């Protein structure tokens, strides 16, 4: 039981997908201008990533490995993820037009989110079982959401701040992201004192 907890907590904080693994930076920079969109994007990513981890585990374990087709892993994972994202978009558009409006063009961005491909691949290399895969995917997505929301909160304030001209816009955002990354790196030191 504790091992599962560690998988989740580790994915959320210690190995935060954005700040420590440096994955999924494009949506992290792109969708973090407003808090509402950040929350929506985080929720959508959480859903997609958890589904993608489950689906890719099944494909890997029952389709690719028995047929010795491991070299197709990346390709088949991408196809699966793309399909899940499309499906999610269609369902959201129908069931929650509001959320679809908030996410707008950002939802298809999840398709190209390297975190969504990276986490299923990490699942394979870390030899996670099915439940662990799901939890790892979920945890990573929560970590991504956390990073996105924190960053969006800061960026909303940055918009009103007196930033020196040359640092305005993306430059100050990058610096902020770097500082936040440093802070999250601090979690890695936790296990030394256990």
């Amino acid at each position: 039981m504790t091992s599962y907890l560690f998988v989740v907590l580790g994915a959320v904080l210690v190995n935060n997908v954005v700040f420590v693994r440096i994955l999924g930076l494009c949506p992290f920079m792109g969708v973090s201008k407003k808090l509402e969109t950040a929350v929506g994007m985080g929720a959508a990513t959480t859903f997609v990533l958890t589904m993608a981890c489950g689906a890719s585990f099944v494909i890997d374990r029952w389709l690719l490995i028995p047929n010795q087709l491991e070299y197709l892993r990346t390709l088949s994972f991408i196809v699966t993820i793309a399909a899940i994202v499309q499906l999610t978009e269609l369902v959201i558009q129908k069931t929650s037009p509001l959320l679809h409006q908030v996410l707008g063009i950002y939802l298809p961005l999840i398709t190209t989110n390297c975190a969504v491909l990276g986490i299923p691949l990490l699942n394979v290399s870390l030899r996670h079982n099915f439940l662990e895969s799901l939890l790892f995917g979920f945890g990573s997505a929560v970590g991504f959401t956390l990073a996105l929301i924190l960053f969006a909160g800061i960026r909303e304030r940055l918009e009103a701040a007196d930033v020196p001209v040359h640092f305005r816009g993306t430059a100050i955002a990058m610096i902020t992201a770097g500082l936040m990354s440093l802070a999250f790196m601090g979690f890695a030191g936790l296990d030394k004192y256990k």
Partner: protein
Amino acid sequence: MSALQRLFKFHGGVKPAYNKEASTGLPIAVAPTPTLLVIPLHQSIGGMPRPLVKAGERVLKGQRIGGADGNASSAVHASTSGAVVAVEMRLMPHTSGLSALCVVIEPDGRDEWIARQPFDFRKASPTQTRDYLRDAGVVGLGGAVFPTHLKLNPGKHGKLDTLVLNGAECEPFITCDDVLMRERAETILKGAIIMREMLSARQVLIGIEDNKPEAIAAMEIAAQAANQAAGDLAMQVVSVPTRYPAGGAKQLIRVLTGIEVPHGKRSTDYGVQCFNVGTAYAVYEAIALGQPLISRIVTVAGNVGQARNYEALFGTPMRDLVALCDPLPDSDRVIMGGPMMGLLMPGDEVPVVKATNCVLVGSRKLFPPPPPEMPCIRCGECAKACPADLQPFEMYWFSRAKIFGKAQEYKLFDCIECGCCAYVCPSHIPLVDYYRFAKSEIWAREVDKEAADIARERYEFRLLREEREKQEKAAKLAAKTAAGREKAAAAIAEAAKPAATPEDDTKKALIAAALERAKAQKEQVHPGNVSNLTPEQEAEVTAIEARRAEIREMAKPHLRQDD
């Protein structure tokens, strides 16, 4: 009596130097009527009153010169009798330095009143009383000039618990309410009795800051007399701790009753309504004496030799009032209101209006220019001082960056612009200026949006109308063609019928007569070649005639149809 009253506290507030003693030393004096009165038509919140007089007309004291524009407006009256010199744009007592429509009256010195009649509000319906007060121009005299008749409404429950009379007067330098309570306590309470009856309020709480012991004493004596006369204990004078802004309506309600009116609610929802003591006085004058609001008590203070309270007619130039008080030579500005919330006037020639509780003369020495603004260090002093429980530093942050939506999320419109935050700010940021800027921008945007919505609606309606008109035209045209065809067909049918109308008959008779005449002439004029004919020739002629007749008979129907 006040010892029985449990007091509450409002959050924040500051204690600036009060500077009130200078103007309370002397009793209220009546300011002399100036040589020219400039009475702005728009003196209260709400619609701009319509001018009712023209240049050249003679007006009497108390005559209505501006009619209320709709219910959310208030009338304006002539302050004295005289001739209307002009109805024109004049400089307003407003920071903008802009002009607005004013009635300029040259007093004739006779000070002749209109016929004054007390208004029996007990016999009139509440709506009639409110309309009367609207036309008497009674507005809140605390400074916000909100029409009083709109506030004298007990709300959805039909009655209130508490009527609060605001005598706190917390702003430095201003003492107009203080001296009014000292000298005319009885009249104020008579007004309060009228208000209480209109609102069906259970009790009247009169909140006075404890730095006005004379006013408290005077009001207590008057309240006791009023209670004795009424045989109850409804009137209570409550001394409240001196702290700026205890005179804010929401703050005073909080201190006296413990009720905190939340965002988006009115105090009447909680059974409380608050009026300034000056307003109660004006209500009494309007209802019991039939005198509309034409003057008020104005404190003249600041950089003057002898500060004093004057009863000034509306329209009196501030310059005249200041001149009565020996202004010091270094005076360089006139502020309407106090140093915390007052508005800088564009000049000293602007008139005294209903909102003028104080004419504050300033100088560089008395109000030195603020030190340069420094960056906000987010120390939170402003939040500690805010009596409206807001976060001024957040509202400042977003107002400064012109992110108005966010500023509104921090409840910018609950800000009463009391100036406490700017007073305590260690970075000397003129916070209130930022809030005023943000508020007016948001208002302007809302006005624009409303105009755009109306334009969109009208444009869409026009398109709809054009489409409808097109269809109607097409339908009309189709109907017309159909009608034309029908008419033609009817005409044919008509012609086919034998003679029917009398008109036709006469015509036919005429034609027949003409034919007869022609026939007779023909018979008279016998053709020459038919005389002396042989019998063979005659027989031939008869045969030919017969044939002709036959042909005529045969041709008849054809001819008719061609007709």
